[in-house]
Each structure stands twice: as structure tokens, then as C-alpha cells.
């Protein structure tokens, strides 16, 4: 840990986010929509500028110096990501556009070859649409069944349900580490162990985990893990699919094109080695370099400090918002990270979102791309505040004050 790095939530750290200087409807921006996307620290923005002003060239191709430098930045980024999540080798890091692409990649390659009629893919009722629909598509194509582990009213997996739904037919178990809609933290290590005992491949959606606490793929024991760069202070267009090399090696390619081939003739082509086999076309190397910068920056701030800070903020927000009359917190799991979903009696979340926005407070209102979660809890939508490394208790004050204003405006 670099002790000179600013503390989470401090003025010095907030000063690293240029966007926090802007005004929204004449008010200071209070950004509480980190679960949708995070803002970028200056070092990440500068990295993109550096790419386009210093070393922009196509990777893995040219003999010229710029291409060599671009390749070094791109492959160097792969090593940074590998170290950050505890991968054994950077060959296990596949760069993708985001988690959605990573999930589709595995569903369309491994899913298509592994699943047959009568087989099952086990997911949970907490999934984001992106960890439902790709499995739904491949299940339909292969005659397999999508099985869903139910949740309680608190938003936790029903105890024992996940294990009891694992059968010899379960070929893939895919689940989120942290619910984007409710903030529930799932016991992924235990789930991976149970699924692997049943002979299933395990796939963890870590989008809402990687920004908030230390993630190590060896500790979890999964076969695959995905996350999106844009949710972890990195540029849009960066994302990571990590897979165990032994499994990646067995998978057919996904998209065809440049970079993923070893040789091409009109009769047949052979594939490049993992991970390049899964990276058809010119990759978004500026975004990958920006991702490495973001993860290095986050490491300097310190994941332990990030987690401690955000845990304290979530507890403060839960108490302050939860004690407001007429406000109900949605998602009361014992283990939560970063997300505070709530509803106000008689006021639709969309109205809450509009009124908060006029006070400069940016939250999400809606189903959070997790309609089955909303259906299960009998709600059309919730308002969601989600926290990140730059937020502090003044942001919670602004949230609480603006919720009071909503209630005043609606006369409740």
C-alpha cells in the first residue's frame, strides 16, 4: 500500500475526479450512481490522452516502434489485471468490452459445447439481466433448462436452496457476487465449492465486487469470473473475463477475425493461443491501458481502506435514510456492499430520481436491469444510491436532505 495515496472520501481523493468540479442544475454534483458506472480519476483520463498523443498504433501487428509500444502497454495491462485478481498467469485474462460480452462469450462457446438436452444451468434470482439472458439463449438452443435459486424477502439466497438445486444435470452454475439491485453479497466461495462437487463449471459475475473489496480468484475457487472496467474507475470499453487456463484451452473460439487466428486459408483456419483466441479484431487497447491504470490507482489507495470506508458509508446511509418516516430500505441482507435501494410510501422512484437530480444528487431509479428481483419483491422499481471511493458523509447528508425535500414536495 502506498501511504502517500489519499484516503477514500477525502478532499484530496475527490480532487482527483475532475467531474466532481462540475455543477448540476446549479448544484454541486453528488454522484451516487456508482453501481451503474463510476467516474474516472485524472490518471485514467490522462492515460487515454497519453495513448492517443504518444503511442497509438495497432497491437500485435506492426514492426514499427509505436506498434511495439502499444503492444507492450496492452500486454502489460493484462499482467496488471492478472496480479490484481490473483490469476496464475496473464494468459488467463481475456479482454472484453465489458462483463456482458464476457458472459456471452462463455455461454456461446463453453455453453454450446457443454450443454445438451436435459442439462441445467443454475443461476440465482439476484442476477442482472446480463447474467440471465445469455444463459437463457444457449439453454433454448441446446434444449437445456435454466434453474433459478430463490431469494428471501431480505434479498438473500434461501438457505440451502442453491446446494439443493445442484444435480448431476447441472453443467454450469453462474451467479453474481454482489447484487447490483440490492447490494446482497453472496457466499461465492461456498457456492463454488458446492457446484464443483456436483461437477458443474462455476462462473462468477464480479461487477459489483471488484470496485469494493479485494477479489482473488484462487480464494473463491471459481472457473470463470467477469467484471466491467467502467464500474471500477476505468474507461468504457474495458472489461475482463478470467478463466482457468485448462478450461479456456478446451473452448472453441467465439468471434472470428484478426488476432484470433494462427493461420488462415480458404479451406480451414487454425486458432491463436489463449487468450488471443477469444480476442477477434483490433482490441480496445487504450481502454485496457486505462483499466490497468485504474487498478494500479485503486491498489495504491488500498482495497482494504476502500472496503472499510464504503462499509462505514453504507451503514451510515442505511441508518440515516432508514430512519426517515415513510422510507423503507429494500434489501436487508446481513452482508451487503455499496448499494442502498429504497422506496418511499406513495412516491414513485422515478419522481424521487427527478427531484434528487435537481438538487445535484444523481441516483438510479428503476428496475436496475434486474426485473426478476423487482418482481420477486413485488415492486415496480426502487430508488438506488450506490457508493464509491470518492463518496463521503457530506454526500449522505445531501441524499437525506433531498429525500426530505421529495417528501415535502409531495406533502407526505
Amino acid at each position, binding site marked *: 500500500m502506498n501511504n502517500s495515496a489519499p484516503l477514500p472520501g477525502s478532499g484530496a481523493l475527490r480532487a482527483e475526479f475532475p467531474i466532481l468540479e462540475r455543477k448540476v442544475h446549479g448544484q454541486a454534483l453528488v454522484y451516487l450512481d456508482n453501481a451503474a458506472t463510476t467516474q474516472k480519476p485524472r490518471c485514467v483520463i490522462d492515460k487515454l490522452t497519453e495513448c492517443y498523443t504518444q503511442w497509438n498504433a495497432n497491437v500485435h501487428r506492426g514492426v514499427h516502434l509505436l506498434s511495439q509500444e502499444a503492444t507492450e502497454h496492452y500486454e502489460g495491462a493484462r499482467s496488471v489485471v492478472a496480479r490484481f485478481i490473483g490469476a496464475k498467469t496473464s494468459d488467463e485474462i481475456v479482454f472484453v468490452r465489458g462483463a456482458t460480452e464476457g458472459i456471452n462469450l462463455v455461454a456461446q462457446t463453453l455453453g454450446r459445447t457443454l450443454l445438451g438436452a436435459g442439462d441445467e444451468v443454475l443461476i440465482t434470482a439476484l442476477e442482472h439481466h446480463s447474467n440471465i439472458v445469455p444463459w437463457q439463449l444457449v439453454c433454448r438452443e441446446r434444449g437445456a433448462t435454466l434453474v433459478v435459486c430463490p431469494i428471501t424477502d431480505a434479498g438473500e439466497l434461501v438457505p440451502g436452496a442453491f446446494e439443493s438445486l445442484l444435480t448431476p444435470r447441472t453443467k454450469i452454475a453462474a451467479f453474481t457476487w454482489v447484487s447490483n439491485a440490492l447490494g446482497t453479497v453472496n457466499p461465492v466461495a461456498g457456492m463454488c465449492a458446492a457446484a464443483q462437487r456436483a461437477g458443474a463449471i462455476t462462473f462468477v459475475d464480479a461487477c459489483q465486487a471488484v470496485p469494493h473489496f479485494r477479489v482473488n480468484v484462487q480464494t473463491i475457487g471459481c472457473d470463470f469470473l467477469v467484471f466491467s472496467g467502467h464500474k471500477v474507475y476505468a474507461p468504457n470499453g474495458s472489461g475482463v473475463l478470467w478463466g482457468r487456463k485448462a478450461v479456456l484451452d478446451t473452448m472453441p473460439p467465439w468471434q472470428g477475425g484478426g488476432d484470433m487466428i494462427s493461420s488462415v486459408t480458404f479451406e480451414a483456419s487454425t486458432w491463436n493461443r489463449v487468450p488471443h483466441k477469444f480476442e477477434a479484431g483490433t482490441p480496445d487497447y487504450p481502454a485496457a491501458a486505462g483499466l490497468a491504470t485504474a487498478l494500479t490507482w485503486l491498489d495504491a489507495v488500498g482495497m482494504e481502506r476502500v472496503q472499510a470506508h464504503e462499509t462505514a458509508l453504507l451503514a451510515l446511509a442505511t441508518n440515516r435514510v432508514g430512519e426517515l418516516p415513510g422510507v423503507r430500505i429494500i434489501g436487508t441482507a446481513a452482508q451487503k456492499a455499496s448499494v442502498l435501494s429504497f422506496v418511499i410510501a406513495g412516491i414513485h422512484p422515478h419522481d424521487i430520481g427527478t*427531484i434528487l437530480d435537481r438538487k445535484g444528487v444523481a441516483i438510479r431509479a428503476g428496475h436496475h436491469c434486474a426485473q426478476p428481483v423487482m418482481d420477486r419483491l413485488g415492486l415496480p422499481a426502487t430508488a438506488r444510491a450506490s457508493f464509491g471511493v470518492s463518496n463521503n458523509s457530506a454526500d449522505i447528508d445531501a441524499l437525506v436532505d433531498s429525500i426530505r425535500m421529495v417528501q415535502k414536495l409531495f406533502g407526505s
Partner: protein
Amino acid sequence: MSELEDLYQEMILGHAKAPRNFGRLEPCNAQAQGYNPLCGDRIGVSLLLSDGRIADVRFDGAGCAICTASASLMTESVKGRTRPEIDAVFHRVHDLVTGKGNRDDPLLGKLAVFGGVSEFPMRVKCATLPWHTLNAAFDQSSTPVSTE
């Protein structure tokens, strides 16, 4: 008046809290469902048509204050009217909420209260969803209408 107070006027909040003509019309001879996937608003409109006029109309569903008030005031406005008359009113409402209209237009009547929506482009669909759903009911569309 602030833009927020202009958006959430007393009449809109009143209709949102106590919507008129709420429920399902039985019997009815036309109905449709409307859905805004962005925010989850769902509106159902059921009509009793007689001699080309709306003899009775109701709406149900769950939506935000703007959507619910729009549906409520719409049902009051369209009763007894023909489709061409309703098209003309919706045209004015659409112009109003997209900033091209005029609150003093006599055809709008009470619907002028939605003038504040034009300052909130993200909320235009909330105000228009009930009208699109009413049109779908007229068309006897079997598939739900969507604002997307």
C-alpha cells in the same frame, strides 16, 4: 415557481394520489397495455366505445406521479370524444410536453398543467405513455405498446 414546483403542480399531485377513472372497465370493447421499460411504468386502458365516441374509459397499473396524473386527466378529457378529436388533443399535449406548445391553447383545458414537463426531457415519456396506450386500445392492438 421553481421548475420542480411547476412539474409537480397541485393538480398533478392530487390526481397522482387519487386518480380518477381508476380500474378496469367491464364490459369494455377495446383495451391495451402500455409499458415504459426505462422506469417500469405500466398502464392499462380499457374503453367502452359507442357510435365512435368514448362512452366510458378507465385505466389501471402502476406508474410515477406524472404518468398516473396524465392517465387520470386523460380519461377525464377524452370521455364523449371521437378519435379525431382525441388525436387533436394528444397532438397539443405532445407539443406542450416537448416544449413546442402553448399552455393557453383552449383545446388543452386542464391538461395545460403538464406544461412543466418540457423542462424535464427524461419525463416526456411518462406523460405520453397513457396517450400511446389509449391509441393502442383504439387500434385494438394485441401486443403491448412500448415507449421504446
